[in-house]
């Protein structure tokens, strides 16, 4: 906590904070001495909503190794999710086409 170096990422989504769910628009990312994690240095992320004043945050402090693992798993989850989503969309299109055909046949 000696550097004040913070990387800011624009976000669109929600996080569950001390008062329940809230929208977030920013992630403050830093690598410094943690407040709570039993580590000399930690990767910290504070999810906040600057548009709402940024008074509440959802915070994590994780080890460097954990951060790198998380990056990989986020990428993997997105890739798997995209593939599954594309497959689902394709199936949905087939189903819709078939349904439309079935309906057309009724007339």
């Amino acid at each position: 906590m000696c550097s004040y170096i913070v990387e800011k990422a624009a976000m669109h989504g929600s996080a569950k904070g001390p008062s329940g769910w809230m929208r977030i628009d920013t992630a403050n990312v830093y690598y410094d001495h943690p407040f709570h994690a039993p580590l000399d240095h930690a990767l910290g992320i504070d999810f906040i909503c600057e548009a709402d004043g940024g008074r509440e945050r959802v915070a994590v402090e994780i080890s460097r190794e954990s951060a790198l693992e998380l990056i990989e798993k986020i990428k993997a989850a997105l890739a798997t999710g995209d593939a599954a989503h594309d497959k689902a969309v394709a199936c949905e299109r087939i189903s819709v086409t078939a349904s439309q055909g079935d309906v057309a046949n009724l007339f």
Partner: protein
Amino acid sequence: MSYPSIIGETVSFQGHNGDKGEAYYARPNKPGRVGGVVLIHHAPGWDEWIIETTRKLAHHGYATISPHLYFRDGPGSPDDVGARVRAAGGVADNQVVGDVSGAIAFLKSQPNANGKIGVIGFCSGGRHTYLASCLLADGINAAVDCWGGNVIVDDPKQLTPKRPVAPIDLTGKMTAPLLGLFGNDDENPNRDQVNRTEAKLKELGKTYQFHRYDGAGHAFFNYARGPAYRAEAAADGWAKVFAFYNKHLA
């Protein structure tokens, strides 16, 4: 034997620009005049370890005040307020110096003050201690810099509107004796920066003593941060702090 009684409480103090904020004030509960100490908290904020350390100094005989340097960014828990301050790029040097000046005035106004003032700071507070001992030289009798980083600024990009001057460039203004405690494994300040700071103090004929600890990094006094704490170095460091204050604040 009996242990000395102390009184500890949260008080209001007047800081920079006359702003009123919170401070923790702990002092010995005994007759007679005592020296005062301003304890400048570390970058994470005005947390439990800082309050306990304020009481430790009182236990050793000093009326000690720890101003909440982030009070303008509250309310909230120390870690949440600290996160806000970090995201905003930290607190401005002139504001900190104004707050420290207000804390000194608070101590000097106490009826049992002996008029001597020490300052001690940890982490960013160590840097603030160095800064205050240069810019408030008339009001400080002994300064303790515990691993203050960025006293030397090697990258000019690190100079910002909030921190426009490298404290090392103000060293000529320092009049109080300075005690510096550093871990040899610290990255900020690193060994080279500590050596260069010492060289500047020596060149300008300042009264100082630096102590370096092998096997210790940043924040080695802080038992609340397990990986950083070094019991042996901390015990030796505290002994040096109290010997220094007993000499200069009595």
